[in-house]
């Protein structure tokens, strides 16, 4: 306790150290949040400084807006689709890499590489590969006699969202892998040794030791996945721009179009408020989960 009293001595100094981050980051972000909240009750066009308060009109419109619900649904499907596949693949690969066979670092590097590349670049590469006519995927399928499987991956509403999910998994699987890898290292070795002596198989060890021991990591990856899904923008803009039709519209792409392309700043703000509300609920959930651990 004596150490505490000594440290309590500071009165004004701490705030000086905090000024830069509070002004640049805290103030900036909360200012933007407040601005969004206020303008969501106005008919602001997003460009000029004139606006009128119109009460809950934007929200009334939003709750009868099909596109908004399509976007919400797409965000949800995207989240479920990416997070679970990514986690399962990431775990599998982390476990295998953790055997530390010669060359395992090379594997790790390749799986991790997409994280260092911009989503814009990866999406662009995939846009060409997935092209229905000149794309390498369809060419490959045709050349091995599976031509009937060749699809308009991004142009067909049936497959477009699925393709976006696959590209996202490609980009971020290494993220789950590296985090699981960190978790694996922290599991005591003797647990595995005991299991081996007891004659446990690979799958038994995986399901009865590894996965339960990594429960916290998995929960965290799911929460991060929700936050990540709410942040998704680049991949969708580059791959489909929300199309065909509105079939791959995401909350962020819809907001962007409303704000920047259609000059409905107020309406865009009401979408922003919904995104922020989901984010806040998620953060509270996350804090709760952390406390429980």
């Amino acid at each position, binding site marked *: 306790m004596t150490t505490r009293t*000594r*440290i309590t001595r500071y*009165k004004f*100094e*701490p705030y000086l*150290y905090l000024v*830069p*981050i*509070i002004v*640049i*980051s*805290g103030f*900036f*972000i909360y*200012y933007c949040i407040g*601005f*969004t909240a206020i*303008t969501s009750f106005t008919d602001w066009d*997003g460009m000029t400084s004139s606006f009128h308060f119109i009460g809950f009109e934007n929200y009334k419109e939003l709750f009868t807006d099909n596109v908004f619900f399509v976007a919400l649904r797409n965000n949800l499907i995207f989240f479920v689709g990416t997070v679970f596949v990514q986690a399962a693949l990431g775990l599998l*690969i982390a476990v295998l*890499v953790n*055997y530390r066979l010669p060359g395992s670092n090379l*594997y790790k*590097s390749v799986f*991790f*590489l997409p994280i*260092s*590349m*911009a*989503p*814009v*670049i990866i999406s662009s*590469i*995939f*846009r*060409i*590969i997935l*092209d229905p*006519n000149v794309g*390498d995927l369809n060419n490959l399928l045709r050349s091995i006699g599976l031509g009937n499987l060749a699809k308009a991956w991004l142009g067909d509403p049936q497959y477009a969202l699925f393709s976006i999910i696959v590209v996202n998994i490609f980009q971020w699987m290494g993220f789950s892998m590296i*985090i699981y890898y960190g978790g694996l290292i922290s599991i005591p070795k003797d647990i595995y040794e005991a299991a081996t002596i007891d004659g446990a198989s690979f799958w038994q060890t995986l399901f009865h030791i590894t996965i339960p021991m990594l429960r916290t990591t998995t929960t*965290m990856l799911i929460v*991060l996945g929700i936050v990540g899904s*709410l*942040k998704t*923008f680049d991949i969708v*803009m*580059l791959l489909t721009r929300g199309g065909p039709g509105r079939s791959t519209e995401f*909350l*962020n792409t819809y*907001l*962007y179009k409303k*704000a*920047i392309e259609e000059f409905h700043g107020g309406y865009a*703000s009401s*979408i*922003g408020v919904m*995104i922020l509300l989901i984010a*806040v609920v998620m*953060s509270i959930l996350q804090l709760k989960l952390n406390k429980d651990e």
Partner: protein
Amino acid sequence: MNTSKIGTKFAIYAILTFFLILWAYPVYVAVTKSFNVGGLNNYKAVITNKNINYFRVVFNSLLISIATTLIVVLITTLGAYAFSKMRFHGRNVLYILLLACLAVPAAAVTSPMFFTVKSLHLMNTYLALILPLTAFNAPMMLMIVRTYFDGVPDEIIEAATIDGCSSFGIYTRILMPLSTPVIANIGTLTFVYSWNDYLIPLLFTRNENMYTVTLAATYFMDTQNQTAAMVAQLYAALILMTIPSVIVYLFAQKYLQMGITAGAVKS
């Protein structure tokens, strides 16, 4: 026993290699196709493009990413020092308020950012990109640094205080030298995230002179048609735009991986 061990090894390599092929395939396609038709001339065409000056674009991205990284490192280490090693009123509230920003997607506040930058006449400036990038990257980095500082024993700080070291002296002469690993982690992470960002430059950049690599990549995507020669050139452009970040990755892979682990494990 021995055969089963060989079998296990074989199975591990087989599964890993299967996924390796899936993961390497897109990059392999991009690299090989970028030499189609024109060979190295594809790259030359991108570098000498009339509208996009490759070196200018790389310079812009470098400048923005380096500036963002330096500011983020400075403000997060200062802030983390206060949060970790000092007690004061409102410490927990302020920390939670800053951490809550972690979950705020920049895209959700598109219109206020756009309007503010426009009203301040900052459109097409480096500042318009550096500021939001700093703001949105700082909360996570603050958390990583704070966790790291929490691991630095308070006794070191006390001993220094008794020896007459000022609180700023503790920051510059004790904490900073001790934190090179965490600075490397958050530095690499911030650099890569800023380099790869698309939304912020998309919002605040209007002329080709100020384009970042991500905008330049989309410019090429939008202007090329689908002839084999054009596709090859497009791949060359994408590779040229991503080479600098891959180089950073090759040299700082370890820090990037550690940064990502640190950012997730505590959050």
